[in-house]
């Protein structure tokens, strides 16, 4: 009994109500953000293909994805007869919850950080690979061969590219000496890490963007849902809001990858050359501006490059990215040891 009351005390002390409110705000903001990322993707895709894109619903088509979401909410939730019902229903929540959990640790600006954990980067890497369990569950339980193939490919891809994500971030952690995200930002007050770490940092950034794109299962690494081969991949059998969860999670994951890159390589909410240091709330603007530039870069990748074959995917990771990453890690260690970093 005593231990239970201790736990309750602990919950009350840290403020369950506060936590719930923060969680609710984050949930709302990022659900809307996810919707607008979908819209942005469609617009950017249209511009890359010399089209116009959605421009009918609302001013300049701004409410297109909101209308789409409303439509998806009103759709019937279908499933296959032989589906494993429990896992089938669980899978979308796995995917969306893990991607929303990752958002908690980002410092959007100086004081706007929900959860300043001292192993922030480790948490992000760990959480981002939990999402693949949701994909595997969805693919397995929906009793559909396309979904299963998609899910298995996702497993292969995420397990391989997880290494590169981890190692490229580790390269930067050598420079910062801390896994805590607020600490990492603090270090960058004397120059963004991509400048401080110069050559190895740029290589690490390139590797991170490549493997990050693979982590989010987006083109050119979209073998997971490869429309031309697998229907819709792991979410072939999902409809309505459950499908929307998968879809939303993909876009929030893209935002997360871009936000990690912003935090670790481009100084997070710090303004370039400290031009707006007197206005701390502008940090949010700088964070989002940098993140959206990187999101745009990922969209640019998507609408330029053709899809890789699965053997090419594994060759790229195991023969190129991983060895380069390991060498890069050593180079970075030597540079930090000899204090060759560039600081202002």
């Amino acid at each position, binding site marked *: 009994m005593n231990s239970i009351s201790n736990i309750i005390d602990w919950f009350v002390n840290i403020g369950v109500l506060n936590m719930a409110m923060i969680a609710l705000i984050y949930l709302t903001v990022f659900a809307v953000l996810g919707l607008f990322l979908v819209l942005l993707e469609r617009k*950017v895709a249209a*511009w*890359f293909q*010399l089209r116009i894109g959605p421009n009918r619903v609302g001013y300049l088509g701004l409410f297109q994805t909101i209308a789409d979401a409303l439509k998806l909410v009103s759709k019937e939730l279908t499933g296959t007869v032989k589906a494993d019902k429990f896992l089938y229903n669980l899978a979308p929540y796995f995917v969306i919850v893990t991607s929303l959990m990752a958002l908690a640790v980002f410092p959007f600006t100086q004081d706007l950080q929900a959860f300043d954990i001292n192993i922030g980067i480790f948490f992000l890497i760990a959480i981002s690979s939990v999402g693949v369990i949701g994909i595997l569950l969805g693919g397995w339980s929906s009793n559909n061969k396309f979904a299963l193939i998609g899910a298995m490919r996702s497993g292969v891809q995420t397990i391989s590219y997880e290494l590169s994500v981890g190692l490229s971030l580790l390269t930067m952690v050598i420079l910062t000496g801390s896994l805590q995200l607020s600490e990492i930002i603090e270090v960058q007050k004397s120059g963004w890490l991509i400048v401080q770490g110069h050559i190895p940092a740029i290589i690490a950034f390139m590797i991170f963007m490549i493997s990050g794109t693979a982590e989010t299962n987006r083109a050119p690494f979209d073998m997971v849902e490869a429309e031309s081969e697998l229907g819709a991949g792991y979410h072939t059998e999902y409809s309505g809001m459950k499908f929307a969860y998968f879809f939303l999670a993909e876009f929030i994951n893209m935002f997360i990858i871009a936000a990690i890159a912003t935090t670790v390589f481009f100084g997070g909410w710090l303004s370039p050359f400290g031009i707006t240091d007197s206005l701390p709330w502008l940090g949010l603007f700088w964070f989002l501006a940098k993140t959206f530039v990187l999101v745009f870069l990922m969209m*640019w*990748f998507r609408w330029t490059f053709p899809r890789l074959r699965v053997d090419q995917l594994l060759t790229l990771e195991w023969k190129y990215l991983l060895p*380069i990453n390991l060498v890069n890690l050593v180079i970075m260690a030597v540079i930090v040891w000899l204090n060759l970093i560039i600081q202002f």
Partner: protein
Amino acid sequence: MGYFSNIYHAIGTLLTGMKVTGKYFLNARKGAITQQYPDNRDTLKMFERFRGEVVMPHDENNEHSCTGCQKCEIACPNGSIEIIWDRIIVPETGKKKKAIDQHIFHLGMCTQCGLCVDACPTDAIKWGQNFENSVYDRTQLTRILNKPGSKVRAGVEE
């Protein structure tokens, strides 16, 4: 050293691709190929090669150049063209001559293959640029291409 030159070339080709799409992205505003169809109905002009329907151009004297040779009717794979013809007596020479009464074109059956237009020796039939072909009644898709009272242009047959 093939390993490193591979990486170098890979990055080079990727950047080339991104340059191409980047150019498209920047020009998307003025170069968009999308036609916002019902809105630009008045200004929309179909391109030269567009195959909307088969038409028979008539000049200002209400004359066409169809001699009634029926090559189009033979060329049509699914019988979309029917030609009702007759022999008329040419007043100048007193000889009998083949002339069309009605050139019937069934748009409802036409697959826009273009064999009739290719087969026509006198360029009497052409592709029209009209694409708003929906009607409420199927019979309206059967069109008589030669206008009433029209006749073949003199000198086409030679």
